[in-house]
């Protein structure tokens, strides 16, 4: 069984790979910014934006699709409508018909889109070398990390590695983290629920 077989996850609703077109991104940023301003109490510089008209905010992007998803911040579990065009998340909308959130969003939920669009996102694997961050390939990163972990396991035992898992991933992924520790041979695994 190979990686390809496992990772046959469905393509994006638009069915195309993501290319962040800066022109498109900018235009849509302005649109979402104005749409969200009233909801989240977000403050925007007047220089950058013009006021969107209500009817304009309701016009779908040509060929776009709406995806139902769930906010990634707190455990209330608010619904989010994401508008996707050509594989790019162009706009988000509150979910008026969601049974828990009923159209409610806090400022974090209202800015969910920046989780994907933030320029601060890591772009490729990095390692620290000579006190500086150095770009490396995935292959090199995985090979080095895994061989070092195996070396430590061999030399000191499986409990010489501590795994801090996550309450920010899916239940399936969290389960795999726990399973990994078991297969690795340690109970040194924990996550944010402890604290």
């Amino acid at each position, binding site marked *: 069984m190979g990686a390809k077989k496992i990772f046959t996850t469905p393509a994006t609703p638009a069915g195309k790979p993501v290319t962040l077109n800066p022109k498109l991104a900018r235009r849509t940023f302005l649109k979402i910014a104005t749409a969200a301003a009233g909801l989240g109490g977000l403050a925007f510089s007047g220089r950058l934006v013009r006021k969107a008209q209500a009817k304009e905010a309701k016009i779908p992007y040509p060929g776009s699709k709406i995806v139902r998803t769930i906010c990634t911040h707190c455990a209330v579990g608010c619904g989010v409508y994401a508008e996707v065009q050509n594989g790019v998340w162009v706009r988000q909308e509150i979910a008026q018909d969601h049974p828990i959130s009923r159209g409610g969003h806090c400022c974090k939920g209202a800015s969910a889109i920046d989780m994907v669009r933030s320029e601060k996102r890591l772009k490729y*694997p990095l390692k620290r070398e000579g006190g500086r961050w150095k770009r490396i390939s995935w292959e090199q990163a995985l090979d080095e990390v895994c061989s070092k972990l195996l070396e430590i396991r061999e030399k000191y035992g499986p409990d010489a590695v501590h795994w801090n898992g996550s309450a920010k991933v899916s239940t399936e992924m969290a*389960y795999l983290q726990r399973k990994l520790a078991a297969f690795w041979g340690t109970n040194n695994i924990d996550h944010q629920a402890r604290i």
Partner: protein
Amino acid sequence: MTNSMNDIRHSKCIFMIGSNAAEAHPVAMQHILYAKEVNGAPLIVVDPRFTKLAAKATEYVRIRPGTDTAFLMGLINYIIQNDWHDKEFIRTRVAGFEEMRKVAAHYTPEVVEDITGVPKEQLARVAKLLATNRPGTVIWCMGITQHHIGSSNTRACCILQLVLGNMGVSGGGTNIFRGHDNVQGATDVCVLSHSLPAYYGLKEGSWKHWCKVWGVDYEWIKSRFHSKEYMHKKGFTLARWYEGVIQEDKITQYTPIRAVVFWGCASNSQSQYHKLKKALDKLDLVVIIDPFPTTTAAMCEKDNVYLLPSTSQYETEGSVTSSSRQAQWRYKVVDPIYEAKTDYEIMYEFVKRFGFADKFYKNIKQIPEDVTREIARGALTIGLCGWLPERIKKHTDNWHTFDIDTLQAKGGPCDGEYYGLPWPCWTETHPGTPILYDISKPVAKGGLPFRARFGTEYTYPDGRKENLLAAPGVANPGSEIKGGYPEFPGWKTDPNVIKEALRRGMAPFGNARARCYCWNFPDPVPIHREPLHSPRADLIKKYPTYPDKPDHYRVYTRFASEQKPELVKEYPLVLITGRMVEHMGGGAETRSNKYLAELAPEMYAEINVKVANDYGLREGDYVWIESPEGGRIKVKVKVTDRVDERTIFLPFHFGGFFMGRSYAANYPEGHQPYALGEPANIVTNYGYDIITQIQATKEGLCRLKKA
């Protein structure tokens, strides 16, 4: 949560202690405010700080940090003294009431006022509000749990609800608002050092059960461990793993920790952060897997660190469990951006290189759906058997068909089911359990009694014997046995036993009484114990902490030897921490979000007007805050009456500064978050819960120095 966010709409009284939902769970507020406005429910907020939630309260109770158990036991005592307790509920569904009552009797309004600082008249008023407005809900968060007696605090909340008869009813319950979006799901699958998924623990039978689910040989898994002993020994926790590296407290493990992997986890959320930083400098290897660089990356100064970019959760998919035990399918919005890989893919690459991919993915061909199915096959204890990926997706696809008051679908493809199939969802056709311990509905339709987990009879220290099963006549409609019954043998490992129990109208885990007296806890009935670092030196002798615990999750943990009455002379102020609405957790995501960073760009300390004047501080001045452990941070002052004259409040989301120095240049270039600041946890104190080892960040001491 025993009930749900939506069910709070039915409450007649809302009691919130150690929760600031207005900032931490803002969207839940609509249900709370509905109950307040429409039902006229009093909203009682108990907190050391006048929070944004407190601003909505009908009754605000300012409590001294670390004295919640004393206040709760005081309420319980006052309710019993006035004969307001629910005698029928207690007679039929509660155990150990007499034993608990004797302990609670100590907490008279006068005693409680001395410990907590809450005027006795206010205690009486709150008790009366609770007694005369039923059913009421009790809600708490980390203000209750992050104490050395955090586990006692939570139990005192539960006992309060038992005494009021508020359990198993709509509008009642014990409702813990959880923090991270999937902390409930990650807890349920036990990314925890003391248990295998679904709270099975680490016993031999638990390992055998999960080996069977995974389809691997138990002997092979055993061979992966250092020894059988270490298979059953609880591991290090997130709160204290770094002691495994620096060993300032003695560790009970054959090797120190040499490598740490942070997989979607911040480090600046852990107390005594300056000690954690020492560990980062000492480790052979630090691996950070995250969409953002995180504070951890900036704090690493050695060539021992790797940063692997995982995608955000919007570029992958899977189920997430809300605080109300509901599963929702978080659909993928877009494909991974840049070179980021999904967590699933990184996991596969790791496992492949570790050489056990065939065994690890034996039942898993399609990700994540086959993982959901594997969990459903194994997690019988909490009834995840009915959480099949198709069902979870169907609920999310049809969220508009569910009623906001009952959470039940009205017609449509999910007709009659409860939104998100709140667990236990015992079978592929079970509708979910919207309210735990509700005996008004059949078990197959979402009803449930209290679990029979501790045998059928108990003899208390004074010789009194008590039947632990529910009284005759108390059972869910349609139950074959009209009264209490023990658990069904084999229900935790055989789904057919569960189906058999449901066919007979019964709960697989039995029908018992809820305990007020937990003989397996250090304090069978919750009692007040002064914080390790207490501002009330005079109370330490009367309410001392526990003896030290030599092997607490593999590390010596100080209690009595850490409780020094003279400490307050040098560190006169009480330190508490909490959330801001604009940020989340360690802030790696939100401080890198341009909108949120603009809204809340700066770290600050809330300081009372009198303290500010005494120290000669004005709004915006910088101040050093110092902890007894040697941590110090330089932060801006916010002068406010939200905190009292003895308390300092710090938000805990910041990072990128360390003891006065900026580490901005230590981030990968161009990836510094928009907002940087001192982590509050550099000055949070030593102190851990006696059972869970949660860090006691809501009851420390500190001192101020003008910067």
